[in-house]
């Protein structure tokens, strides 16, 4: 039984939006619940995928579990240790074990440093070792991410997207990370390069026993790489389960719509007639939050077809994640 490396309990992160310079005096602050009560756990050598549309709070979850953001409430337990309110100096010691791959490749690598310096800096921050040892580790790392040695003297702007990704990965591995939050690691890459990176991530997991929290809006990649998938909608997890089940036997209407909306390459001789039959009913997509009850209700086809049942919009009965067997949880009053 692999041990649990990360446990997140009822995590909340609310950002405050100030209106004007003196807003703090006038109590004119607006709270934006980017993450509003998220719970999940991640076992060693496992990948949990986090999917959802842009703005649903995926990245904020990733940043908060690493304590890059301070959670508003809730608990984050990393490797048996509660890190929710750990002081900065103790957190630094843990940083070597938990790392993040950032979404924006160009912003994540210092443009004025050569690749060799980027990597050696990361190594020496966490380990007190000398020059020859650093060089040896760097060449090990390059081998692990299959990057050419000649690239070491280059600057980040001289590398292609896939190579920058590899450097980012090498840097994360250089500090000996066990748990990695990968935030959209393939979003800016071409399909052929995307495949290389996905394969590399899987390969490293097998060899080094890494655990990933894989954040992406690309459903197919998530399905491929994850053992479990959590679907987020407006700051909450609406469904979580094994990736095969989420993709093929979704219980929450939102998950179902997400996956069926994938534009699948199809046989041209027999064009499938529009999958998104209810496309018209979906209308405009916006993040105007319903004030009470299920957040998804305004877009929900089930809510509509059942004649707008009361529990869906009643604030007292907002749907909670319920176990439905097979490590599958769904937050819906009327699962499919």
């Amino acid at each position, binding site marked *: 039984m692999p041990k649990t490396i990360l446990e997140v309990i009822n995590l909340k992160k609310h950002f405050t939006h100030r209106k004007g310079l003196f807003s703090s005096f006038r109590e004119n602050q607006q709270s934006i619940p980017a993450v509003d009560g998220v719970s999940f756990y991640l076992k060693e050598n496992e990948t949990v995928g986090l999917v959802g549309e842009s703005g649903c709070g995926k990245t904020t979850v990733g940043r908060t579990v690493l304590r890059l953001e301070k959670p508003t409430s809730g608990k984050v337990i990393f490797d048996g240790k509660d890190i929710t309110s750990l002081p900065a100096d103790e957190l630094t010691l843990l940083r070597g074990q938990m790392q993040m791959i950032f979404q924006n490749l160009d912003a994540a690598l210092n443009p004025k440093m050569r690749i060799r310096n980027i990597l050696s800096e990361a190594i020496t921050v966490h380990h007190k070792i000398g020059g020859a040892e650093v060089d040896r580790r760097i060449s090990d790392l390059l081998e692990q991410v299959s990057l050419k040695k000649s690239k070491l003297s280059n600057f980040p702007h001289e590398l292609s997207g896939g190579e920058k990704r590899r450097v980012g990965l090498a840097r994360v591995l250089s500090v000996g990370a066990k748990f990695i939050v990968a935030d959209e690691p393939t979003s800016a890459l071409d399909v*052929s390069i995307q*495949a290389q990176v996905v394969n590399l991530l899987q390969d490293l997991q097998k060899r080094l026993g890494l655990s990933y929290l894989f954040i992406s809006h690309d459903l197919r*990649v998530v399905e491929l790489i994850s053992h479990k998938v959590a679907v987020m909608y407006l700051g909450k997890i609406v469904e979580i389960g094994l990736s095969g089940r989420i*993709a093929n036997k979704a219980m929450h209407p939102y998950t179902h719509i997400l996956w069926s909306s994938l*534009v*699948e390459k199809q046989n041209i001789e027999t064009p499938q007639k529009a999958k998104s039959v209810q496309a018209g009913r*979906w209308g405009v997509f916006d993040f105007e939050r319903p004030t009470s009850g299920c957040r998804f209700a305004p877009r929900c086809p089930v809510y509509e077809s059942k004649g707008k049942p009361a529990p869906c919009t009643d604030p007292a009965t907002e749907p909670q994640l319920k176990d439905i067997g097979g490590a599958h949880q769904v937050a819906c009053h009327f699962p499919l």
Partner: protein
Amino acid sequence: MTTVPILKIEDLRTYFYSRSKQALIRSVDGVSLEIMKGETLGVVGESGSGKSITALSVLGLIGAGPGVISGKIELKSNRIQKNLLEDLEDFVKLTTRDGKIMEVSKDVVGWERKAERVMDKVRGKEIAMTFQNPGSSLNPFMPVGKQITEAIRLHTSMKTEPEAKERALTWLDRVKIDSPRLRFDHYPYGLSGGMCQRIMIAMALASEPSLLIADEPTTGLDATIQSKIVDLLGELKSELGITTMLISHDISIISRLSDSVAVMYGGTVFEYGPARHLLSEGEEAKHPYTSALLASIPSAQNIREKGYLQAIEGDVLDTINIPEGCRFYSRCSRVTERIREKCIHHEPDLREIGSGHKVRCWLYFD
């Protein structure tokens, strides 16, 4: 669908001169394509393959700066029959030394004046384009409805404001913006990415062009919105019979909408033909790059059957140092001993191997 080409591109070359590298970046390097009336031509390829530059060249938007274009772009619409690149080469001078290009001098003013005179009647009226980034391609200081009205008054016979406004509203309705009257007065920042894309499509089509160029219409949108934009383009195609050049790096979108497909790599067309030949799952003769591209898509089938993605090793082609032989040679997994010599030293040409199906690969020749 008829067999009359509306746009015929012949041997289009668009080069940029990089002063710091003292070299030409050959973004588009000999592209020939034809778009028939009523047809959707899908152009697919990785970043840097020259898809967008081809489109920009067609619209004459490369003019400013160090861009050099040669070749033929023949527009054959009802109103205009003309080679859009006529006489433009006279304005550019290349200075070479030891086979290396030392300098490119361009009479920018002359080029612009000549190009603008031709393109003025074409751009927006005959060929309209929707751009990759809908959010930043709309004017942020103008309500979206007004932007469409402006395009209508400029390009069609409707010159009065109220008349054009009515027309704009019907177009907003046609691209399925709900409550068009309300949205008419909204500014782009208040609309989502998907809605901005719809506004762009409405604006492009409102002037009733003979050809629509859609550059990456779904990039950067969420999956749910993507499928809606694809549905919309499909509906507009069957309702209005518009001729479209669809540019995307996403094969699934290309295969949903296109009648014929051109696969681009490193500035050239690698494979060109009917979509059902190129993108079908069957073991038909295909360019190694096309098959590799198809295998690397994370589709449901690839996930279920293999559990991993087939990656193409290596990187996208560097368009400055173009190899002597086949541009794909260093990444190709299907080189055989029979053709290896040719692959290294001779670039294959685009040859027809089946009805309307052309391939640039030594595998299928002789």
